[in-house]
């Protein structure tokens, strides 16, 4: 079931000021894929999710789910949440404490008026799916965080919704469990062939879980793409910085050499993969990811993009060295092989492949 969002705005009044939580958002969420809304807190991702599910209503715009208009300001249509046929996993899980696991999961079927036998059959099936068979009569308050999360997932899935929505469902789990659950969730959702909309502020979660990501900021969508597209070919400084660790280097285009752009930057001349629409003289930002900066032999000559710098800080994190190198007045984040012999204060040579440096607007 695909979701089409067109020109959706939502404003809140706080302390007498109008705050635009959503500012003309348009998005196409394709069917049977995991779509993530990623952004820092306050970017409007949760508001957008609540508008899709019907717990909030936009001030402007239109939302269609599977071709059906569920909200339209122009036509005065608002379908209440209970009529939208969706499933949702809340950040707090929202497990009802006065009910058992079975009662929690059976609730969506009960309010739809299914027969008892049918309810028992379907609840049994979905509990097996989330690996909670045998927990039926357990009071919902006697569950661990991970189990609560699965009950919430089972409850969202049991009525076979057209779309399932997740509002930061992993943020209440500890780090190790979060990683496991993320893997499981990806497997679940792929197996179910269901449309899923997922809200998070965690870039690792977004990159590893999603088929497509929309990066949001201040109530707008900045970029939409597959995780690799967003990571490697991001179009703005904000996204580059938000989606991963990045060195952002200011510069100006000097010229072009076939498909390489020559950039005069604050750390010297650099060669980067050219990008359409950037002519000589244009101010740019070069985005270099720490893992793309490689250690070069000290005596080497004639290589592209050779940078000489001094190790300012160095941390051994197990799988690598993480540190900061000063090149001129600029400090660059680096990630270097754990096996190299490095010490703070050392002078080292670094290099990078032109196609791994991304040119951004300044």
């Amino acid at each position, binding site marked *: 079931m695909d979701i089409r969002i067109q020109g959706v705005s939502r*404003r*809140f*009044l706080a302390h007498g000021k*109008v705050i635009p939580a959503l500012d003309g958002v348009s998005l196409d969420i394709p069917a049977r894929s995991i779509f993530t809304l990623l952004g820092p807190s306050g970017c409007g991702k949760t508001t957008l999710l*609540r*508008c899709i*599910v*019907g*717990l*909030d*209503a936009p*001030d402007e715009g239109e939302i269609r789910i599977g071709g059906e208009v569920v909200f339209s300001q122009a036509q*005065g249509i*608002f379908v*209440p*949440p*209970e009529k*939208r*046929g*969706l*499933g*949702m996993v*809340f*950040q*707090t*899980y*929202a497990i*009802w*404490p*006065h009910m058992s696991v079975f009662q929690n999961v059976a*609730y*969506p079927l009960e*309010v*739809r008026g299914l027969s008892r036998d049918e309810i028992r059959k379907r609840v049994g099936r979905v509990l097996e799916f989330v690996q909670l068979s045998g927990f039926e009569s357990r*009071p*919902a*308050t*006697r569950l661990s965080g991970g189990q609560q999360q699965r009950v*919430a997932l089972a*409850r*969202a899935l049991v*009525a076979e919704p057209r779309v399932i929505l997740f509002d930061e469902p992993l943020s209440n789990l500890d780090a190790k469990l979060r990683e496991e659950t993320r893997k499981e969730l990806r497997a679940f959702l792929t197996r179910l062939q269901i449309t899923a909309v997922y809200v998070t502020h965690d870039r690792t979660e977004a990159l590893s879980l999603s088929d497509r990501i929309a990066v949001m900021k201040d109530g707008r969508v900045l970029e939409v793409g597959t995780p690799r597209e967003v990571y490697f070919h991001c179009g703005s400084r904000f996204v580059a910085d938000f989606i991963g660790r990045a060195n952002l280097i200011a510069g100006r285009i000097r010229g072009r050499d076939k498909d390489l752009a020559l950039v005069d930057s604050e750390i010297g001349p650099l060669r980067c993969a050219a990008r359409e629409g950037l002519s000589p003289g244009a101010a740019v930002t070069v985005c270099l990811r720490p893992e793309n900066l490689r250690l070069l032999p000290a005596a080497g000559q004639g290589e592209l993009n050779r940078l000489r710098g001094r190790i300012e800080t160095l941390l051994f994190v197990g799988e690598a060295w993480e540190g900061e190198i000063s090149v001129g007045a600029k400090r660059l984040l680096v990630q270097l092989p754990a096996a190299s012999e490095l010490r703070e204060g050392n002078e080292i040579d670094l290099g990078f492949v032109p196609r791994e440096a991304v040119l951004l607007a300044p």
Partner: protein
Amino acid sequence: MRKSFLSPGTGENRRPLTFGLLVLVGGLTVCPVVLLLLGSLTEGLGAFGRLTLAKYRAAYADPGFAAILYNTFVFTVGSATVCTALAFFLAYLNTRTNLPGKVLFRILSVVPMMIPHILFCVSWVLLLNPSNGLLNLLLREALGLSASPFNIYTLPGMILVEALLDLPIAYLVLAPALSAFDATLEESSHVCGASRWHTFFRVTLPVLRPAVLAAFILVIVRSLASFAVPSVIGIPGRIYVLASHIYRLVATGFSPDYGQAAAVGTSALAASIVLVVLYRRLTASSERFVTVSGRGYRPAIIELKRAKIPLLAVVGLLCFVWIVLPVLVLGYVSLLPYSMIPGEKAFALMSLKNWRLVLADPISRLSLRNSLLLGIGGAVLGMVLSFFVSWVIVRVRSTAAGILESLSFLSFSFPGIVIGVGFLWFFVLTPLYGTLWALLIGYIATYLPYGIRPLTSALVQIHSHLEESSRVCGAGPLTTLRRIVFPLLVPGIVSGWILMATMFVRELSLSVVLSRPGTEVLAVQILRFSEDGLWGRLAALGIVMILISTALVVIAGLFGRRSLRAFGLEAS
């Protein structure tokens, strides 16, 4: 900006519910006030006609009025002072010292719900009245005195009894403030070289000042509204305060003057509203002022050492005076033909005659039936209204919901007898006059905050996601209220219901104005017995009343605890 046609944050229209409740609650609380004002400006009950200030002139130019104001001032401020001091002492002992017998303190804060105020007053009259008070008789015989050493029918007598009656309220305001007190403030004073007493007066008291002031003001409001003490103790002693003065104007003599009563009532109401506004402001700021640090500080517990036993004796004595003595005195008197000190003669004369008379008395039986009906049924209706009002206050959060909140707490400041006069002006215009419905409406309007408060505080504990997930699961708003909100609120609903039902069963000050032949209620019947000096019958009926209140508290308490366990919420 265009106003959303949907209320904020919900995505659906909750306006009809909010506005419906606004009209209902507004009608209940504003209407008697408006009619009180209108009534004070007119000629007589039911005949509005031309507006006139004649009633104000008559009321305030009365030569006795200055004395009434003086009495009211001494009575309210006096009982507030005694009560706050006593409550502070008890709260300090409970929260800051290692005094054993903490269960006594819990009793002190629950039991007053079971003993109606009027019976408490009567039992003190039975003990300390100058002609045949039991304690007076005992002391006269023991010490060979010719006159009674105590006279309850005085201002100090009124102050003492009122202070004891309001003690639980003041205690409940002070105890949380004291237990949230950050002991490091005191410790740093000690480190600076100050003694314990110096620290207490220079640090502890000033920091707690907002809470102490709040308790003080609350007791003033309570004693201004109090009718039991002024009627049972004040009137026989010819000491009139505003409440009993209003009662004298409407309920005694041959020509009740409702206009003049309304004129007097407006000033009592105005004073009360001002005080309640002040109280709410103080409690709001005390939350800022009193340092609830949440950093895990536990108040330093003071070792009492040698003072432990005497202090425990004081608390025990207070419990005895407060709970055991009234019931004992009433039980004793209910078995006797007239007041006499316990002894051989008294035991020889004991019989169940008073009980037989009361239980056969048609008016007493009617009042019992009416009070039970109003208590149980009225509290159910009151809680239904409170449920919806609380939900709108906590969940909708629009401007209209804010107004609803203020309106629903307005009646907290209503002195019962004053608002009773306002309601009377209203009911004579309707066919409700002289029916139980009139009492029911008056009760619910006046005691609405007692139902709303436990519910709002329970509702804010319930995360809105619990309701929203039910909606996403396919349940409509009403199903969500029934299957999610209601079950989770049961503990709050039960405690609100007990509070309302016990209030309704013992209601006096509103009822003395609104009750008419056929709609007698227990407390009014007790007042009649006390005016006629029929102490034996009064005591018998009073014991029945205490039993009803106790049964309500016990049954509801049991049910509440069972439902808590069923939901597995007990531990949390």
